[in-house]
């Protein structure tokens, strides 16, 4: 991947992120922030490669902390987002009071 191609990817991805969010209603701000928080959990794949190629003990320890935290970011982000979004329902599908 040459530098200029990387810059193209960067620019297009930045526009994409902006456009995807631009028209979001306030009611979804919190779940969406949580959802984007989950998406940057992709740092896990980078942390896996960094740890997988580590040589010294120091590198392995730091790499393991990185993988641990990245996995926490991804898994935690998914669970809390899913829990929040699961609850959004329209009138037609409403539950009876007291039922969960």
């Amino acid at each position, binding site marked *: 991947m040459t530098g200029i191609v990387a810059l193209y*990817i*960067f620019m297009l*991805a930045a*526009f994409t*992120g*902006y456009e*995807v*969010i631009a*028209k*979001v*209603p*306030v*009611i*979804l*701000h*919190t*779940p*969406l*922030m*949580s*959802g*984007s*928080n*989950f*998406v*940057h*959990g*992709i740092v*896990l*794949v*980078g942390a896996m*490669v960094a*740890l997988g*190629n*580590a*040589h010294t003990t120091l*590198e392995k320890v730091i*790499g*393991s902390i*990185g*993988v*641990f*935290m*990245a*996995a*926490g*970011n*991804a*898994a*935690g*982000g*998914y*669970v*809390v987002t*899913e*829990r929040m*979004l699961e*609850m*959004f329902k329209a009138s*037609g599908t409403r539950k009876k009071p007291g039922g969960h």
Partner: protein
Amino acid sequence: METLLGAEGRQWLIQASYLLTAFLFIMGLKRMSSPVTARSGIVWAGAGMLVATLFTFLFPGLGNYEWLLPAIIAGTALAWWSGRRVAMTDMPQMIALYNGFGGGAAAAIAAVELYRGEQMSLTMSILAVVGALIGAISFSGSLIAFGKLQGLIKRSFRFRGQNIVNLLIIAATVLVGAFIATGYHADPFHVTMHVTLFFVLALLFGLMMTLPIGGADMPVVISMYNAFTGLAVAFEGFVMQNAAMIIAGTVVGSAGTLLTQLMARAMNRSLGNVLFSGFGDTGGAAAGGTVTGSMKPIEAADVGVMMAFAQKVIVVPGYGMAVAQAQHKVWELCQLLIDRGVMVRFAIHPVAGRMPGHMNVLLAEAGVPYDLIADLDEINAEFETADVALIIGANDVVNPVARTDKSSPIYGMPILNADKAKNVIVIKRGQGAGFSGIENALFYLDNTRMLYGDGQAAASQLIQAVKAI
């Protein structure tokens, strides 16, 4: 796995899987921006994450499985467990915690690369250092945000010249970072020294920057750190030549920046104001003109009759309702009214929860359908035609002095026009002032009646009152 495919074939498979992941992430986020499709959005994005993680195991030369697998399993299990358990009211701080982890992971990747001290091109080492800086700030800053919202850190640390001290810390960090990025002729000992100093300074800066910020402003700060982590991931993605990280990180970076601006605007604050002024603290001095008149109490039975025979009732919930765990009872009450033919709507102020949209989550948890919930712009014109505005746990967001009194600290903040309703019922625990310590002129109006009591108990009484009719 070495026999499965040649190194080249495996690289191709990994790249193809990352492309699929990027597609699933973007589609997932897109679906998450509408309440109708939001639930499927996170599932799409989750599938993307799973694909990328599994295919990364094909990476040629990947080793250290005895470190790798326990770290993945422990991180996943711990976060999954905590994410399942956390109460909906505590969601904002959990998001902060997981976000901090992401920033820390990006910084850790950079640390592995930088401690190794291998020759990199200048562009790459600058990107690695900048990503490390942003990631480390996001890590320590998010942990402080978590601590504040969780109530572990009670007070805001402020002193004279704080902004100057912070400026000096960040200047020193950038200086050491520049030295690392350009100075790879240094011997291993000095590399280790410089990199360690750099991370200590960067973590300290995140700490110092977040400590003075008050709890009410934290949501904006968390959103900003979310964007920071995205950018840090993108920068480390460049260093590792990893397209999935570049795309996902950049998308989150720009989406998060926009979301931060939207949140700040919804709270009537600018980002600079949030970061450098140290307002947003709950201990702010009460100011503004005195309010004349008296608060007039009312009994639950009378309120029940009033609402049961109304045509339109607008409920204005605040964080106080969630603290009292009254949302289930309030919704039960509203369903009784709906069954009687009353038109019921919920009016949500942008700062009604702990962060914009948080109140919607709390109402959704109680089972309130989202099409009954309206935000400020949608509902404000409707108060004039409402027979009853029921205020429960909200205070400053319905205070009319924000429109009229220039000396009030909340002057200029957009408010819900509950005072325009024919009758205003305020459920309130006692006679004290609100979150910001400002007297609420709404409580003293001629069309306002106070129903004193705990939110949950008051809602139960109202349910009994309506049922008794």
